[in-house]
C-alpha cells in the first residue's frame, strides 16, 4: 500500500495542464494522456493511438476530441473511440478532480497484463 487512498492516485493540479492541451503521466503499463479541453473539463486516455501508436497527448485538441499527430485520426476523449470512418479505440481512464487536484483511478498502477 502506498500513501495515497486505495482507489485514486493524485497526479498533480488542474493548472498543470494547459487549456486545450495535454500532459502525460508515466505508468508501468505505458503513458497516459491527461487532457484539459476548452471548457476546462479534464479527461484521460491511454497515450497510444489505436492506428499505429501515435502519442495522442501531442495532438490538437478540439471539442472533446483530439486529432492524432501522426496520421490525423480523430479520437473521442470520452470513449476513446475513433471518429468518422476509422475504426479503433484507445482505453479511457477514470479521472476525478478534487479541490483542484487531479486524481486517476489507481488501477493504472497495475502493470500491463
Amino acid at each position, binding site marked *: *500500500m*502506498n500513501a495515497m487512498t486505495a482507489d485514486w*492516485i493524485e*497526479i*498533480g493540479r488542474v493548472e*498543470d*495542464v*494547459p*487549456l*486545450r*492541451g495535454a*500532459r*502525460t*503521466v*508515466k*505508468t*508501468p503499463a505505458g*503513458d497516459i494522456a*491527461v487532457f484539459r*479541453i*476548452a*471548457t*476546462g*473539463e479534464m479527461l484521460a486516455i491511454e497515450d497510444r493511438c489505436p492506428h*499505429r*501508436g*501515435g*502519442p495522442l497527448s*501531442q*495532438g*490538437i*485538441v*478540439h*471539442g*472533446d476530441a483530439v*486529432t492524432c*499527430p*501522426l496520421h*490525423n485520426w*480523430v479520437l*473521442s476523449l*470520452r*470513449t476513446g473511440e475513433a471518429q468518422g470512418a476509422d475504426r479503433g479505440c484507445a482505453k479511457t481512464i477514470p479521472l476525478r478532480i478534487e*479541490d483542484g487536484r*487531479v486524481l486517476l483511478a489507481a488501477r*493504472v*498502477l*497495475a*502493470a500491463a497484463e
Partner: protein
Amino acid sequence: MTEKLVVIGNGMAAGRALEHLFEEAPGRYEVTLFGAEPRVNYNRIMLSPVLAGEKAYPDILIHDEAWYRRHGVRLRAGRKIVAIDRAAKTVTASDGTETPYDRLLLATGSDPIIIPLPGHRLPGVATFRDLDDVETMLKAAESGGRAVVIGGGLLGLEAAAGLKGRGMAVTVVHLAPTLMERQLDPAAGYLLQKELEGRGIRVVTRANTKSIDGVDRAESVTLDDGTEIPADLVVMAVGIRPSTALAKAAGLAVNRGVLVDDSMRTSDPEILAVGECVEHRGQCYGLVAPLYEMAKVAAARLAGDEAAAYAGSVTSTKLKVTGIDLFSAGDFAECEGREEIVLRDASRSVYKRLVIEADRIVGAVLYGDTADGGWFFDLMREKTAIADLRETLIFGRAYAGGAPLDPMAAVAALPDSAEICGCNGVCKGTIVSAITAKGLTGLDEVRAHTKASNSCGSCTGLVERLLSATLGGAYTPKAVKPVCGCTELGHGELRRLIAAKELKTIPAVMQELEWATSCGCAKCRPALNYYLLAAWPGEYADDAQSRFVNERVHANIQKDGTYSVVPRMWGGVTSARELRAIADVVEKFAIPTVKCTGGQRIDMLGVRKEDLPAVWADLNAAGLVSGHAYGKALRTVKTCVGSDWCRFGTQDSTGLGIRLEKFMWGAWTPAKVKLAVSGCPRNCAEATCKDIGVVCVESGYEIHVGGAAGLDIKGTEVLGRVASEDEALETIVAIVQLYREQGWYLERIYKWMARVGLETIRAQALDDRAGRRALFDRFAFSQRFSQSDPWEPRARGAEAHEFRPMADLRALEAVR
C-alpha cells in the same frame, strides 16, 4: 418555555431563513442575531448599483429596525462571534459577552480572497464585499484618478463598470485569456471584452499580477511581464472563500465549506448552517438563488418539519452592468453525446449557445439578447424534452412551435426598408429594385450598382440570398470551398475579412464571421492562427494550442513518438566547432541516428521528448539554432560552392544563400518555403525545383519561382533577372511577403502561383519598385517579432510542461 435560537451572521441567507421561520412558527424561538457588520440586513447584490450610483443605501435595505422589533429579534449589530462552546452551548462575542443557545444557525457567508502580493496591505487596496468596501471605493473615486481591478469575473467587472461610471480611468487585469471564463465560453467572453473596451475600460487578459507598489499608499500595479499600470485605487476581486474559521475552531466538520446534509444540519445536529459558508454534496455556492432554497429548508427544519430537504441547485448568472445583456446557466462542457446549437449574429453582437444532451438542455450561454434566458433556464431545470422544439429552439420562445426558420424565407420576409449592408447603408428595396430594373445577375454586379457588400463583405451571404430570392433558379452563386465544416467562408474571404474588420483574436474571428461551432476544429484553428499572426505582427498572441505538435514543440515528431532535431546550417556551410557540438550531443544523449538531409544539413533522429531542452541547450552553446525543419516556415536555403571555389561559378552563390537564410529565418508562411541558389546554369543546388530559386549568370541573378519536387514535380518559372545581390534579396523577400499575405494555409508557392498567376507576382514583387520595397519593409517589420530562436527560451526552462510528464507513477508500483 420558548427555545433559544442564536443566529451568527446577518446576511442574505440568515435574513431569508428568519423570514420563513417567523411565517411558519411565529413565537417558537427567542432569537438573538449577531452580525459583524454594524448595520441591518441589506441586499448585498445591490452593492453594484450603489457603486454605480444607480441606487443608494436606503434603497437596498431588506429589514429595517422595525422588522427586528416586530419579530422580537435581539439584533447585535457590529458584534462578531469569536467562539462557539458546543459542550456548554454558548457563543462568545467580540465584546466578551456570552449568549446561551438551544439551536444555532450559522450563516457567516464568505470572505473575499486576498492574494498575498507584495503591497496588498497598502492603503488604497480594496475588496468588494460589503458596504464599507463600497464606501472606500466611492471615496477614492471622488478625486477621479485611476483604478486597477484585479480579476475579470462577475464582481470585478461590476466594480470596474461602477468605478468607470464614477469617472475613474479603469483597467481590468485578468489571468485567463477571456473574461468570466467560468460562466462564459471564449466567444461570449470576447463580446463582453469588446463591449467594455467600447465603454473606455481597458482590459488586459493573460495578466498575472506580480506586485502592488507604492510608498504610503498604492500607486501602481506591476504584472509578471514587467508592465506597470498606475493606480490610485486597486480593487482585488479574485474570488471568495467560505468563511469557516469559526466553525472549524468549534470542531465542526469542514471541508471547503461547513459540511451540511440535506436537512442543512452540520456535524453537530443542534447546529444548522446556510448560505455561502456551507458545502452541500461537494458544492459551494456564490449566488443567492441556492441560498434562498437552503434558507427555506433550514427554516422548515427549525419549525419542526422533519421532511424538508435540500437537493442542491442549478444556478444561472447575469452580469449587472447596465446595457450589457449576458446570461449563462448550467454546464456547457462538451461531452460525448452532447451537441451544441450555436447562433451568431455578428451585426447585432449576438451570440447564443445551447448544449443539448439526451434531448434536454443542459447548458446555455446568451450574449446580447438574453430575453429567452429564463425560458431556457426553465426548460433546463424541468428537464423538458425538446425534440419538438429543436428546429427553432435557439430562436427563442417566440418561434417555439412555429415553422422552422428557413434562411431563404427569412430574407424574403424582410421589409423593403431592412438594412442589408451596414457599411454602405443599403437596404433591401434598393438591392431588389436594382436587380430587377437593371437586370443584374451576379454578386459583382450588385456590388458595382448598389455598393452593397462592397466594403467589409460580411453581408455577402444576405445579398446572395436576395439574388436567389429575386431571380429564383436563374441565380447560381459562385461555389467557394469552405475552410472547414465550421464556416461557409473560403480561405480568401476569410483572409480579406480578418484585415477589413480588423479581427485580432481567434474568438473575434469566430464571432464576427459567425462560426458554426464554439471553438473550431483541427483544420480551421491552425489556419486562423497563421492568418492572424501574418496580419497583425507584434500584436497577435500566438496560440500554441492551435498549432500542430511539431510547431508547438519545435521538433519533428517521428513514428515512435520520439523527435528529430535539425539545427540550421546556414546555406549548407558548417564548421569543425558545429560538427563537434553535434557529435558531442549525439553521444551524450545516445541519439540513435545521424543523417544528412536532402536539404543540406544534419538531422539527429530518435531524440526523447524529455531530452529536447537539454539537447537544445548544448546546441545553442555552440551557436546552433533551430532549423525549423518542422514548420510552415522558411526551411533550408541550399547552395552550391559558386565563385568561391568552382571553376564555372559566376557569382557568390554560397554567400547569397547564407544572406537569404540569415535574413529570412524565423518567418512563418502558409506552407513551407525552400530556397536554393546555384552558381551557374549547371544548377548543382537544384534551384529550379524549389519554391524560389536563384540561378547566377554572368550578368546577374535569375530569379525562379514556383518549383516543387515532392508530391508534385514542377520546374520553376522565371520571374526575371536582377543585376545585384541586394536586388535579388529584396525581390525574393518581396515574393515571400506577397505569398505570406495572399497564400492560403497549406498552399505551397507553386499552387498559390497557379491561382494568382505569375504575371501578378511579377508586377507586384519585381516591376513595381515602390511596391516591392513596401513588401520588403513589411517582411522586415514582422521579422522583429518572429526572428528569435524558439529553442533558446525552452532550453532555459520555458514551457517546461511540454517536455516533462505531469507525473511518473512507474516507481510507485514497486512499493505496492
